[in-house]
């Protein structure tokens, strides 16, 4: 090293300098995140234009110019349309949502019996929330109560007919109540059936396997509408003469069949992810098929596919909106049915109603998807390297 003839060697330390102006603070952030390249700049400008155009319009329509309260359509239509708003006015008709809110929630459920729906909802939330929070203890008891006892109580509360409660026909049900009940029942039914179908599909017995494959692939291959039609039009034909099914029950059957097939594929994914050693280990302990599945394989497999299950739930929740095709009034259907109320017919009514329904669906689905991501993160630890 010494042989090198270094003509100049700096002997003192260089003082720390401030970062260049464009490499710090807001400028840096802007440059890095918005204007990194000329192309980026153009994209940012386009994005800004979109936001600058859409956001004020949306805010004005949804909040500033919106009609929040009012007795009838006059608050939501302009003078030339026979209302009180100035011509050229455009704003959301939240007054419509306001006036019809209880219908959107309960449908035609008798007014004096609605406490039964509320009570059910309170129980639902009270049981569901602790089940969802991982830290809360007594999961097993909670789950049994939620999936076992709660449906029975809810059934007697909502349908009535005993314990001094008057019967409320399911044809009177509507709105969010129907959406929630349909999705809850279909979800609770589809999980066990989906597990059975998935096990069947991976079974070594050819007949069982074939039956499950045909069932799963047929149902997954056709649209939900056709399954619902089958349940509503053909089910009565399949049963002995004179047997009738409640329309609500038929929709539940259709939805459950549909969801089971999808659930089966999700569960199968989990079963496939379990290493063969687990199956072999279970066998070598002398466990039978059901024991090894129930005690060793399924607990691991189901844990792996919780996000997939939640996604299936989200899909099912959204799909309940299709039951209007078989004559049921879920949230979306009842909102749309109210568009034809002449008291509220105005150009703004349909948009406002649909946006309200969209917000409700969105809130539920978004919450579920966030929860699924949270669970995914939680369960991920220790599984992957």
């Amino acid at each position, binding site marked *: 090293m010494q042989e090198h003839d270094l003509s100049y060697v700096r002997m003192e330390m260089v003082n720390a300098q401030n970062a260049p102006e464009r490499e710090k603070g807001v400028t840096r952030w802007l440059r890095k995140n918005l204007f990194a390249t000329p192309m980026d700049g153009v994209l940012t400008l386009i994005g800004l234009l979109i936001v600058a155009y859409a956001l004020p319009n949306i805010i004005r329509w949804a909040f500033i110019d919106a009609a929040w309260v009012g007795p009838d*359509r006059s608050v939501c*239509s302009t003078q030339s*349309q*026979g209302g009180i708003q100035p011509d050229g006015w455009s704003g959301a008709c939240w007054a419509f949502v306001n006036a019809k809110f209880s219908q959107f929630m309960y449908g*035609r459920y*008798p*007014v004096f019996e609605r406490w039964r729906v509320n009570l059910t909802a309170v129980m639902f939330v009270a049981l569901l929330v602790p089940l969802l929070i991982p830290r809360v203890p007594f999961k097993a008891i909670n*789950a*049994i109560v939620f*999936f*076992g006892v709660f*449906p*029975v109580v809810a*059934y007697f509360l909502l*349908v009535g*007919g005993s314990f001094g409660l008057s019967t409320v*026909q*399911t*044809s*009177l049900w509507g709105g969010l109540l129907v959406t929630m009940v349909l999705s809850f*029942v279909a979800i*609770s*039914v589809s999980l*066990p059936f989906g597990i059975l179908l998935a096990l069947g599909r991976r079974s070594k017995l050819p007949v069982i396997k074939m039956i499950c494959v045909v069932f799963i692939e047929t149902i997954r291959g056709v649209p939900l509408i056709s399954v619902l039609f089958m349940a*509503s*039009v053909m089910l*009565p*034909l399949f*049963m*002995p003469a*004179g*047997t*009738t*099914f*409640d*329309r*609500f*029950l038929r929709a539940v059957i259709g939805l459950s069949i549909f969801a089971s097939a999808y659930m089966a594929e999700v569960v199968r994914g989990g079963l496939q992810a379990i290493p063969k050693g687990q199956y072999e280990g279970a066998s070598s302990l002398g466990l039978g098929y059901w024991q090894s599945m129930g005690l060793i394989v399924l607990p691991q497999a189901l844990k792996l596919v919780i996000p997939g299950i939640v996604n299936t739930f989200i899909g099912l929740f959204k799909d309940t909106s299709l039951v209007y*095709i*078989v*004559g049921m009034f879920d949230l979306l259907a009842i909102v*749309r*049915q109210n*568009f*034809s*109320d*002449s008291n509220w*017919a*105005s150009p703004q009514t*349909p948009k406002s109603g649909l946006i309200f329904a969209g917000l409700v669906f969105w809130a539920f689905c978004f919450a579920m998807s966030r929860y699924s991501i949270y669970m995914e993160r939680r369960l991920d630890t220790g599984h992957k390297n």
Partner: protein
Amino acid sequence: MKKFMVGILGGAALSLGATAASAATLDDVKAKGFVQCGVHTGLAGFAAPDDAGDWTGFDVDMCRAVAAAVFGDADAVQYTPTNATERFTALQSGEIDLLARNTTWTLTRDTTLGLTFAGVNYYDGQGFMINQTKLPDINSAMQLSGAAICVQSGTTTELNLADYFAANNMEYNPVVFQGFDETNAAYEAGRCDAYTTDASGLYALRLTLANPDEHVVLPEIISKEPLGPAVRQGDDQWFNIVKWTLYAMIQAEELGITSENLEEMMTSESPEIRRVLGLEDESTIGQGLGLENDWVQAIVREVGNYGEVFDRNIGSGSPLAIARGLNALWTDGGLQYAMPIR
């Protein structure tokens, strides 16, 4: 837990619906204590829930009259709103006992759908409605060539429409929806130039539009649409009850018996009135039907005669203000003619 769930669902299935209807509808109805009646999902004047959720309308009163005949109480009815698609299935499967949902009586419906029409409670015909402010020059259906026409699918209307335009060498653009609400919404939004359905339906629909005065019903009636209540085939007793309930309402109007003067009429000396009201000493007018002898009294007291029902729901006493026209009594030049009750 799985088994538990299945058990619960099975139990729910049993109690929720899976009831077996035997051939004797009357016995079933009496056992459950009410008539299950299939009605329209919401057609002003014919069947629509009011603000309190109670069903009212012309077709609803048909259901109420049957309930009055059976139970003496017109409120012993439960309603099942049905759309055009599911109405027949609902009746076939026994979900409903009676279909009173402005349904047209046709040969194929009588022969291939397993149902029987008990009579005609409204003689209707298919017409067209247009928005006069948008189309001021149109005053006849023959001018509709090239128009976009809203129509509900799965109805006789859809077929009549195709036949009418083909027969008159006109073209049109069908805008077809499965549901009544969707069809209305599309018409109101201006998606079509004209709307076609039964004339009664047009009047009812017009009421629910935002500006009813802008819309006119064109004069042409392009089809015969006899609307009536239907029951399942193979139960003659129930068929008779529905059929004679309708006739009793018409007969009561013919005899001038109304819900208001019923008490007065009870003291009438007219043998015919006494016979119809079941006031004769050895009266048997209810027996053959399996009803009480005062069943006509009950209908008139609880619901009213045909004329009252018509006026109240769709006639001069209602916003629809439909003229009696073909639905006047035969004595007034109409088609409503009751077979003699004796």
